[in-house]
């Protein structure tokens, strides 16, 4: 399942989405998190120490390529399974959550 949080800047999305993530993880769900913002705010809101949060790795652009689907629509094709990408490029957050910084992804290479 994928759950996205949206809203105007400053509305409290990051605090709420991160706290929802921690709560569900404590209730035994397998939780992964993606920070779609360019600042590492979700890492901090999840409880990763600030000095670690600023050092977090970026997702390399080579993990995906652009392609065209049978209907002619442009699509992004991941070259690895999402769970593998979280495993390889994610970082550990409290309560067993795995976090990816999605916003620092470079543009996917052309297919």
């Amino acid at each position, binding site marked *: 399942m994928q759950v996205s949080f949206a*809203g105007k800047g400053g509305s409290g999305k990051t605090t709420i989405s991160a706290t929802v993530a921690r709560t569900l993880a404590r209730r035994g769900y397998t939780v*992964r998190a993606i920070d779609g913002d360019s600042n590492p705010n979700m890492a901090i809101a999840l409880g990763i120490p600030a000095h670690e949060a600023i050092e977090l790795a970026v997702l390399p652009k080579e993990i995906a390529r652009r392609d065209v689907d049978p209907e002619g629509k442009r699509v992004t094709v991941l070259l690895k399974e999402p769970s593998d990408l979280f495993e390889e490029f994610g970082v550990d957050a409290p309560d067993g959550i795995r976090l990816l910084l999605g916003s620092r992804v470079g543009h996917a290479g052309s297919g």
Partner: protein
Amino acid sequence: MRGIIGELKAAEGITIIDMEAGLELFGRGTPGASDLLAIVIEPSLWSIQTATRIIDLARELGIPKLIAVANKIREEADVEWIREALRPQDVEVVGVVPYDTDVSLADRKMGSLLDVAPESAAACAIAELAGVIAREVGAAPTAPEASGGNGKAGDDGCPWVVDAYR
């Protein structure tokens, strides 16, 4: 085209995306694969206007479930204002998070609300919201709930910063 973020949907478990503020990622189709979109709204006109536009864009992307979360609430009238504003678009406010200075405290300490103020009204309300979201998407825990921690979902409800709101 959803971009890389939108394609990161694991086969099991729950993937939570904290989207960049505003509308741009909707234009790119990023949350298009989401099973549920939670729209966080403060009691302000600009926040409500942004939310109504988000709802339109989310519906265009075909996201099956849209819910609203009223945040930084000080009085019931704030919640009613938000509910009424979303009624024409048929989106329900399923979570109400009170204005809570412990959230600011967690921000200043650069820590998680659950670590800095686990007994706060906001933490309690967000824990309730977490349960609602899990039910809405029909997810099941992978492992039994560990004892301890703040996974509680008490029947006596959450304390409010403003006692008048019940």
